[in-house]
């Protein structure tokens, strides 16, 4: 087989990249994924989309992505409902430091057109009546943030890309990238050999390993983040509720169930995606403390998935001087799902050498050569 580009990873980033390349006229695109569709980080994520960030770059990426999500159902011509719900994210501050940071965040977000508002605890309670505001100092709320079904959003991109001629191979593991004289020659999988001179690394949790296959060192690692889901109940909560200080995000999805997650600062840097009782205990305590009526809900399932973490918690998108023809979209640090539209738009522009409005050098892997110049994203659970 021959291909103009091989994309490694068929999660949300990979399908978005494939769709955008095909839409801009590229032919002969192949996507390989060693798992079933959304078997990796995409299918394990918290299903939220937000624009409330502390770095300008993340704000810009998120806004452009939400702009796409608003028209995704129509543009992709998908036959199922991607379950896009814009009922906001409510982020609560429980420390003075957070309160001061949120003040700055709102100014930054407003400056790029994100309609975030700073709220008093009582105003927050009007939006989420069952919120326990005892420790809440203030909150920020952006009504255009929301929820999307990660499986169906991926499937929507997949169908649209397939109609444009992209070839997908799931459960087909890439084993080797053959490089000769500084150029990519071939991608070898379990069953195929593909001649190509372009590879896109969209391998999510395995981005570092895929880089190494081509001799490219990418400064990312993976760690396990766990989530639980409850039985579905009648709708009581519109927005996603987040607290960075309390280490929780929690939303009620359109299906009726509550999805919630938190991070473990002692998580090992590896590919563990198991789910254990320590998470369950801490998660339930935190959730019931902040949203007391949830205590009556039954927990039905729990799982884990990989965050692929970059040094500044912002994605790495672009090419590299380490190897011609090698592109990467990784290190999303837990936010690859919500940034997928802009990821596909930007990397397709970079590959096809088209102009772009985004300051792409700020997302380039070379920014870490001088870390002082990059902003560190603090708004991460």
């Amino acid at each position: 087989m021959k291909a103009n580009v091989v994309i490694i990873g068929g999660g949300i980033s990979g399908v978005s990249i494939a769709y955008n390349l095909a839409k801009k006229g590229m032919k002969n695109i192949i996507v390989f994924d060693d798992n079933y569709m959304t078997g990796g980080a995409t299918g394990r994520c918290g299903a939220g989309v937000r624009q409330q960030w502390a770095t300008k770059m993340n704000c810009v990426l998120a806004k452009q992505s939400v702009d796409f999500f608003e028209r995704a159902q129509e543009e992709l011509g998908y036959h199922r409902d991607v379950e896009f719900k814009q009922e906001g994210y409510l982020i609560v501050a429980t420390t003075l430091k957070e309160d001061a940071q949120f003040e700055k965040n709102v100014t930054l977000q407003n400056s790029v057109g994100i309609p975030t508002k700073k709220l008093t605890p009582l105003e927050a309670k009007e939006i989420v009546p069952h919120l326990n505001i005892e420790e809440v100092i203030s909150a920020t709320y952006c009504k255009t943030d929301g929820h999307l079904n990660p499986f169906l959003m991926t499937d929507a991109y997949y169908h649209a890309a397939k109609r444009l001629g992209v070839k997908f191979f799931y459960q087909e593991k890439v084993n080797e990238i053959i490089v000769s004289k500084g150029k990519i020659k071939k991608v070898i999988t379990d069953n195929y050999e593909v001649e190509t001179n372009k590879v896109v690394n969209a391998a999510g949790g395995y981005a570092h390993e895929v880089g190494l296959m081509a001799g490219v060192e990418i400064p990312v690692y993976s760690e396990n983040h766990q989530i639980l889901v409850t039985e579905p109940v009648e709708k009581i909560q519109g927005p996603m509720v987040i607290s960075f200080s309390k280490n929780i995000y929690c939303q009620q999805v359109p299906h009726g169930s509550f999805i919630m997650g938190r991070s473990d600062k002692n998580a090992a840097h590896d590919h563990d995606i198991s789910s254990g009782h320590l998470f369950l205990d801490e998660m339930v305590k935190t959730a019931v403390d902040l949203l007391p009526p949830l205590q009556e809900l039954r927990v039905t399932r729990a799982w884990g998935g990989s965050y692929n973490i970059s040094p500044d918690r912002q994605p790495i998108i672009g090419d590299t001087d380490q190897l011609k023809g090698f592109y990467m979209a990784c290190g999303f640090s837990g936010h690859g799902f919500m940034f997928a539209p802009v990821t596909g738009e930007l990397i397709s522009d970079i590959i096809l050498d088209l102009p772009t409005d985004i300051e792409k050098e700020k997302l380039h892997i070379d920014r870490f050569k001088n870390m002082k110049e990059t902003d560190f994203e603090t708004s991460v659970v």
Partner: protein
Amino acid sequence: MNKDNVIICRCEDVSLKDLHDVLNEGYSDFETIKRILRVGMGPCQGNSCGLLVQREIAKFTKTPLNEVKLQKVRPLITGVKMKSIIEALEDES
């Protein structure tokens, strides 16, 4: 037999027609079908629908039944109220 009236997954209210529709779209492994239709994601985690879905996949793809992988079963084994989890924690300490 009206396939719309044959319920495969009681937790998530998925009919035989829904299942045949995704098989006709080309999806043939349990995990992908689970993510699209939610079969096996309800409180029973596939204890009711699992074998039915497996049989339909086997028939459709003409694969021996024992070669069709079942869905991954996740913790918890059964639904537990959050307040029971908290009470159990308090008993421990």
